[in-house]
């Protein structure tokens, strides 16, 4: 047997191992949560475990609102920053900003949550309003803080990966830097930028600790009517309630079902991302 075969088989085992892990997690989650997962669960509006009511619609809607708003804020700040870093910034400034961004990426999310509790929540309470500053707005700011560095680094890499021949050709034809950026480089890098957005959304959806600290967590979740309302997200509900559920009870199954819903949302997101990127690759190049 030649050496190439042997190495190939080892790599195949490693790859299938990671696929196996994902499969096992999916299977375990589904097995634990499937008992409660039905239409009433998904559209029910009251989550009250002590009365055996498990309806996740307010929590689901709140999660989507919190994550969606965070993404909008993050994109509004991060993409221009990435464009600046890739195209316009002088070399020394780019180094400084990139180093700072990479440090923020490494900060543990619970530390960002502490920052939120100590700085952002009192600021919102004193200057903007709301009951005690905790709520959707605080969640947006915290999640945006966490996603922005991710989006900046990946988008900037995507922008830089566009072959310089395109840029040089465009400039040679007399286009300004901004015209080059808008019409040549951004469309070519858009698949990479979309990939960074998907990653950012994935991180925001899964973020537990920081969100738990600033989002308010009302006793019984309800549909938010303003950005200063307190809400619960899927992750914060699981984190708060999981430690004391009795084994095998419907409450525990409901929490697992929440995990399944989260998992499902992220799977759909990844599928859309792959589809979008592949479409761009086929259509663009």
């Amino acid at each position, binding site marked *: 047997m030649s050496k190439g075969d042997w190495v190939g088989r080892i790599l195949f085992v490693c790859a299938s191992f990671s696929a196996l892990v994902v499969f096992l997690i999916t299977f375990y989650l589904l097995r634990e949560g499937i008992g409660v997962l039905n239409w009433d669960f998904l559209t029910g509006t009251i989550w009250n475990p002590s009365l055996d009511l498990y309806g996740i619609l307010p929590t689901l809607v709140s999660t989507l609102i919190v994550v969606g708003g965070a993404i909008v804020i993050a994109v509004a700040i991060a993409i221009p920053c990435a464009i600046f870093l890739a195209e316009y910034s002088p070399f020394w400034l780019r180094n400084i900003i990139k180093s700072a961004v990479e440090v923020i990426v490494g900060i543990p999310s619970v530390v960002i949550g502490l920052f939120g509790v100590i700085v952002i929540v009192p600021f919102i309470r004193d200057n903007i309003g709301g009951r*005690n500053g905790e709520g959707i707005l605080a969640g947006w700011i915290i999640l945006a803080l966490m996603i922005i560095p991710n989006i900046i680094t990946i988008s900037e890499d995507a922008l830089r990966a566009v072959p310089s021949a395109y840029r040089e050709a465009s400039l040679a034809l007399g286009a300004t830097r901004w015209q080059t950026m808008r019409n040549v480089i951004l469309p070519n890098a858009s698949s990479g930028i979309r990939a960074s957005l998907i990653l950012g959304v994935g991180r925001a959806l899964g973020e537990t600790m920081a969100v738990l600290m600033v989002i308010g967590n009302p006793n019984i979740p309800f549909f938010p009517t303003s950005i200063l309302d307190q809400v619960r997200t899927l992750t914060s509900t699981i984190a708060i309630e999981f430690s004391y559920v009795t084994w095998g009870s419907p409450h525990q199954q409901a929490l697992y079902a929440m995990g399944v819903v989260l998992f499902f949302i992220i799977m759909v997101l990844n599928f859309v991302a792959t589809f979008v990127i592949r479409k761009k690759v086929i259509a663009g190049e």
Partner: protein
Amino acid sequence: MSSNSRLIAFIVIGLVVGAAVGYLSAGPISYNQQIDSLTKQLADAQGATSTALQKAQADLAKAQADLTASQSQIKALQDQISALQNPVLSGSISISGSTTVQPISQEAANEFMKLHNQVQVSVAGGGSGAGIKAAGSGQVDIGESSRVITEAEFLLYPNLVTTGIAKDSIAIVINPTLTGVTDLSFEQVAKIFAGEITNWKDVGGPDHAINLYTREAGSGTLSTFNEYFMTPTTGPAAKMWTRTISATASVKPSNGEMRTAVSSDPYGIAYISLGFVDSSVKSLKLAGVEATIDNVNSGKYPLQRVLWVFTNGQPSALEKAFIDYLLSPAGQKIVTDLGYIAIYS
């Protein structure tokens, strides 16, 4: 006289004297014999005695040697017994559960590890429900809780062994900057937390909405609070009303976070363990009675609860040593230093 007659006279006298002497010394001779025989007897007896004495001395020495041997055996056995009774402790204990009991067990763990430096004790929080479940399912060695086990939990974990280690109370706390509110009745507290009273001005404070904070559903502090205020089964408000905590109350998963929330929110109100009250919050009087340890002990402050630790089955030697340490004067001093109440007061 002639020389012959003189000679004969001498001989006769000599014979007579000799006979007399002989006869007289026969007594001493027999005395001597007696003396000799007695002396001999004495010597024999002495010899026998000294032999016996020597034998006895030898026996004594042997007996003493036996005694010494037995004594060292006894000492060895005593050492073994005390080694079994006070083993050099080693191993590890994991503790989790009520955030009310957590400061006590954390401090006790530090001191215990200093006393027995081959032991590792780790303490976590999670709430009373989590602690009971963790201890009952074997995830941790010792669980702690600030409430008694419910029937449902006892059915699930029938082997839990309980030990009370301290006493505690609950204080209603507000932000120190909130003026005008110092005293609430049981019914006012219940109405505030049920959302029936929503503005501070209704209880003497400024005109602003009341921000409620509550604990997660597995908390022992929450269930004690419910027992005394919301659906009272004990205390001065027993069986007088049934209310539920408002749906908009913000859930904080530990005593520490409740205290932090109130200390940073000027219009917040929360309930925390008495041992957690410090200068960052203000505790309210309940029906005119200040929330102090003396008032709790005397019964004037009508809220008292016991803090428990659990083991699954009888505690092992190491666990028992730790629980005994908690109950010892050193452990109870830790309890009172932290602001709780000693178990035997």
